[in-house]
């Protein structure tokens, strides 16, 4: 039987792209194989570990449970999109390093993209709320406390900065 393909157009990390995708491919397959965005990890591949998490139209999705064919017309962001023009780390990435929220690093890109969704909401959250918002990820190294601290610290910093500029909190 011949392979079925679909032409998709989407925006990946700010860049408009067009691809023929195999309809059997997951979005993880597409991002890793076609775009070499290897921050998108293949972990459990059944939507439990969150290592493949990416942002689609502003919301986090496990890309392992998302057909590449569905990416047509969508705006997709991965960890690679957080880097500055010279490869500088974003504040949340730096916070993960500073708080030792990383050991092996496999879960980190997924966690950071969820953190980005949390931070971009511009809201302040309690520790309990943050724990719930981060609960779609498994980390087998850090015990989560450092990850929570990194996200909380960045949240506080950003809220403070926006207050300083008279921005809405």
């Amino acid at each position, binding site marked *: *039987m011949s392979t*079925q393909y*679909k032409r998709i157009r989407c925006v990946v990390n700010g860049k408009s792209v067009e691809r023929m995708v*195999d*309809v*059997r*491919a*997951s979005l993880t*397959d597409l991002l890793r194989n076609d775009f070499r965005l290897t921050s998108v990890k293949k972990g459990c*591949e*059944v*939507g*439990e570990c*969150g290592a493949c*998490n990416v942002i689609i139209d502003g*919301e*986090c*999705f*496990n890309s*392992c*449970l*998302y*057909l590449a*064919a*569905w990416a047509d017309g969508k705006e997709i962001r991965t960890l690679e999109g957080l880097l500055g023009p010279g490869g500088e780390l974003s504040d949340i990435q730096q916070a993960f390093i500073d708080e030792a929220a990383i050991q092996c690093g496999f879960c980190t890109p997924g966690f950071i993209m*969820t953190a980005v969704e949390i931070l971009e909401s511009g809201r302040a959250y309690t520790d309990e709320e943050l724990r*719930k*918002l*981060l*609960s*779609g*990820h498994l980390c087998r190294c850090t015990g989560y406390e450092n990850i929570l601290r990194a996200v909380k610290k960045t949240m506080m910093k950003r809220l403070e900065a926006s207050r300083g500029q008279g921005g809405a909190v």
Partner: protein
Amino acid sequence: MYDIKALYEAQSVADAVRLRLEHPQAQIIAGGTDVLVQMREGKRAGAELISIYGLDELRGVSLDGEENIRIGSLTSFSHITKDPVIQRYINVLGEAVDQVGGPQIRNAGTIGGNTCNGVTSADSASTLFAWDAVIELTGSQGVRRLPIQDFYLSAGKVDLRPDELQTAILIPRDSYESCFGHYIKYAMRNAMDIATTGCSVNVVLSGDRRTIRRARIAYGVAGPIPMRCPSAEAAAKGKPLTDGTVEAFAAAVLEDIRPRDSWRASKAFREHIAVELARRCLREACELAGGAME
């Protein structure tokens, strides 16, 4: 790569109905959080899929002409939780679906998929049963509406005809008016877990808030499909807000539920927590309705 034989992407509801008739062996895929997992497990190896994920017309919550709440079947769990209509009239549904899986799953999973799976543990199902939800199905002959209790046939089987897809879930006005409810999911973990048992209770109190005018209760995982407890509802109807009423209500659920032993929990344990959940949910629902226990 998934083991997909062919993918048919519906462009409209009518197109989906046509695809259903054209490919009777194909499986409908909505948010994919169950179907794609099953494909990974090899359960649906080589399946043909009809994707309805692109049908934005099936997304969102609104009030229809008769002020019934209309939830498009493709509305994601997280969008239900955040929706102002849900928060105002049936907040318990938003709270219930906020306990499905984890955050990313709640952005992808849909309420239509949750109910069409026909599983007893679906976090939305007990609340939808307890609020007499109506399922809207669209097929080649037009639209059919049926109570959710008739939609669930047996474990994993729902009344979805070969040419149909579920297009909306409705909460009738007389069901949600002056009604307050509470849901408790009992599971081993707070995230990424399936309910050992889930209980949803809602009440309408009398004008002076001293009497229960109507109480409704439904369970997930207390039988092969979600179920209501008529004995418990009768035990609370017209009764004062007292400890005695709560106890009678909670004890009566054992006349209705039929939990089983499974690797997740024993029958005896499920019965024990079912009674406790009924007690706690009724108290909380009465409190939300502004009633004070005597």
